[in-house]
């Protein structure tokens, strides 16, 4: 062991109370950071999971219909015209099978599913409810939204006759499994389906409106024969959805809307949550650093005689500086290990107490090794930086003064 290490460790061991307080400060600081990070990460991940449980990461739609001008204005011609926006009819994605094949080829895309969505009424007896038709290919769609996992009753069997509806719609129409419902659109097309499954996705509005039928049924009802209204896409890295969406839009000429854009408010919320968490962490680090610095400053004064003796015995200023920097670094590293343990304990305890009424934890505990590595690194560097001022002070001690003033 190098002499600097030997001296640094021995000084730490000797200054029991001081070392204890420095270690305690770092431990609590790192504990708070680990706790906070796990909490926020877990919370955010669970919010995102819940939000994306019923959403595709990216939705591809045909571009909007534009009103075409009959006279094109140019530099020599001024046109006075009020061009009104066109009413957007339900239109199909051109050559959607071809587009889907292209999308499936991309490595960052994990699932692709066609969708025919449009408005309709669900009628049973005297009850008429406005619903959203979801024409899907069940096998493909369940890879985007795991509908079978949301089922309350029956099965997610979507065929020419069978359909799935939400719990709230079932209640409002007074239907149970096996009952029939008539679906009718505004222009009078209608079809009768049998309820094969009743689901609860956890969002009342969707439970009230979603009616899952086959692609073909939806195409017939919405007069979109052979076409689809949108393509749902799931990507590998969900935080890259926006970027990938833009690429897909350029590639296909369709418009792409990522979940981040659809849930802009949520994203703002998550970002400000992260920002406030970083802020707290920053100030925790600063106060831990101040703690280390002030204890080491006192320690340097107490150790000035020893430093003087060492200098007289041929210990260079540089070495004295290193001895105190090492003390800061060791305190940072050891404190961060203890703090990681403390934080992990706290967050596990918190997760075990904070439970939903049904006994599931409110948020999953997220303890990633990377977080501990970062915490250890930051704490060690903080310890060394915090020790810088005391170390320089120790190195500057005049041995004569240090030895004489006992």
């Amino acid at each position, binding site marked *: *062991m*190098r*002499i600097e290490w*030997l001296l640094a460790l*021995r*000084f730490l*061991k*000797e200054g029991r109370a001081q070392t204890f307080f420095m270690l305690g400060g770092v431990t609590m600081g790192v504990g708070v950071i680990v706790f906070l990070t796990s909490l926020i990460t877990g919370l955010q991940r669970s919010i995102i999971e819940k939000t994306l449980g019923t959403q595709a990461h990216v939705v591809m739609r045909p571009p909007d219909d534009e009103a075409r001008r009959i006279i094109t204005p140019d530099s020599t011609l001024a046109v006075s015209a009020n061009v009104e926006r066109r009413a957007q009819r339900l239109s199909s994605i051109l050559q959607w099978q071809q587009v889907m094949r292209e999308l499936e080829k991309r490595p960052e895309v994990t699932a692709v599913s066609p969708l025919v969505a449009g408005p309709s009424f669900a009628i049973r007896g005297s009850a008429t409810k406005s619903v959203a038709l979801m024409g899907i290919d069940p096998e493909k769609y369940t890879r985007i939204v795991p509908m079978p996992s949301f089922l309350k009753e029956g099965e997610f069997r979507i065929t020419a006759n069978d359909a799935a509806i939400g719990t709230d719609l079932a209640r409002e129409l007074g239907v149970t499994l096996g009952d029939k419902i008539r679906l009718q659109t505004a222009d009078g097309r209608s079809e009768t389906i049998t309820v094969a499954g009743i689901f609860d996705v956890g969002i009342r509005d969707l439970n009230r409106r979603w009616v899952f039928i086959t692609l073909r049924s939806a195409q017939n009802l919405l007069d979109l024969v052979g076409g689809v209204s949108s393509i749902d896409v799931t990507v590998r890295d969900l935080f890259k959805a926006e970027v990938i969406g833009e690429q897909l839009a350029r590639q296909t000429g369709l418009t792409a809307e990522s979940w981040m854009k659809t849930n802009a408010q949520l994203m703002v919320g998550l970002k400000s949550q992260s920002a406030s968490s970083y802020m707290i962490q920053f100030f925790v680090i600063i106060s831990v650093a101040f703690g280390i610095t002030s204890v080491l400053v006192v320690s340097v004064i107490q150790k000035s*005689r*020893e430093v003087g*003796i*060492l*200098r*007289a*015995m*041929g*210990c*260079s*200023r*540089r*070495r004295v500086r290193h001895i105190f920097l090492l003390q800061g670094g060791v305190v940072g590293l050891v404190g961060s290990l203890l703090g990681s343990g403390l934080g992990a304990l706290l967050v596990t305890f918190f997760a075990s107490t904070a439970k939903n009424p049904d006994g599931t934890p409110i948020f999953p505990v997220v303890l990633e090794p990377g977080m501990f590595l970062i915490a250890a690194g930051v704490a060690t560097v903080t310890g060394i930086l915090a020790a810088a001022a005391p170390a320089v002070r120790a190195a500057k001690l005049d*041995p*004569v003064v240090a*030895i*004489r003033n*006992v």
Partner: protein
Amino acid sequence: MSEMNNIIQLTDVRKQYGNDGITTEVLHGIDLTLLQGEFTALIGPSGSGKSTLLNIIGLLEHPTSGVIRVQGRDTGTLPDVELTKLRGRSIGFVFQFHHLIPAFSALENVMMPLMLEDGRPTPAQRERATALLTRVGLADRLDFKPAKLSGGQQQRVAIARALAANPPLILADEPTGNLDTAAADEIFKLLYEVNLESGTTFLIVTHDPRLAHRCRRVVELVDGRIVG
């Protein structure tokens, strides 16, 4: 007398304190040569500049003017790093208040100058430190922390430590000042014996005229001048 026998040579060394016109000169042109193997007492009343002179000889303090040669080498132009190295290699210190490092055992304290020289502890250092502590009569106290040793024992450790790097010069500042008469006699005897055995040059600052008279050479400092 050849240059090589001059362990330390001071020529017209002056030391002033203070600045901006109000300066006090503590040492007024000291000429002093210590030869190899000399056993010298430095005496003088309080405030005569003994400690300052010792610090200057020990390369802990710079003189305001004058030349200090350690084994013929002029130290005036050496940077701090070189001075520190030279100090570690050439000069051993024994202080009045023992000044051992409390966190380390007797053995480790004696090894300290060697560890600082080599950068890390080695078995050879351990061997030498054990031999030295045995020589000063502390073979059974190797692993004791300084706080567990008596004043006389601590001073023995300090002497062993001063000898560890086998320096040509040992400076002792009131080495017996803090001890009772019996212990003081023992320590003085030890210094004397070591001087005879190893040929190490000793310069001992002391208040005690009894001890001073037992030294082979006495340098008396009064008001910053050597008077005898």
